[in-house]
């Protein structure tokens, strides 16, 4: 079970800010594949992962990173602070 968070247009496209996901995905990419298979709005949000960033337990990470031991996964577009 991981807590999945969405920010900015990813949050808007999926229609929620966070959800608990029951998964055995080994990597972030595997989790993305499971989410895309759920519903068109997930498919729309994850259509181009090169336009997305991922953080694992609040540290920036990569889509091929392992999920074992991770409790919080966040998906969002490239940051635009400052």
């Amino acid at each position, binding site marked *: 079970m991981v807590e999945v*968070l969405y*920010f*900015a*247009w990813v*949050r808007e496209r999926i229609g929620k800010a966070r959800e608990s996901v029951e998964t055995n995905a080994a990597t972030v990419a595997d989790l993305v594949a499971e989410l895309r298979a759920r519903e068109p709005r997930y498919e729309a949000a994850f259509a181009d992962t090169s336009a997305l960033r991922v*953080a694992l337990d*609040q*540290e*920036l990470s990569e889509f091929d990173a392992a999920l074992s031991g991770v409790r919080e996964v*966040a998906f*969002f*577009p*490239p*940051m*635009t*602070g*400052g």
Partner: protein
Amino acid sequence: MKVSVQEAPFDFAAEMAGFGVGRADVGAIVSFTGVVRDDTGRMQALELEHYPGMTERAVTKITEEAMARWNLADALVIHRHGRLDIGEQIMMVATAARHRGDAFAAAEFLMDYLKSRAPFWKKEHGLDGETDWVAAKDSDEDALKRW
């Protein structure tokens, strides 16, 4: 060192009043203030979303890195989130060092970082009611590479 991620406005003068003061080893103080700009004349406000928890952690970590890398006497980062009007202050960075080169470099590094690696996302609210997420700029990503 001070890092704050907050919705409320900050008081630039009050923040700077005590910054780097009373230390014989501080010769240079640099500040940067970011202001909400309207390039098109069609913007009503800016909305900043952030990732509570991660934002504070990430900004604290990078500020500690800047302190060590440029041997700063002090550093300050305040970044707001929420809805901001045109002309409002979005954020500020301040650095204090012995020499000006370190104070300038650390402030620019922190800005380049905050623009492209800190978890903030800007949305523009137009006068016409339309909203648009601001796209990340290659130039901001490129700016980070010089460090």
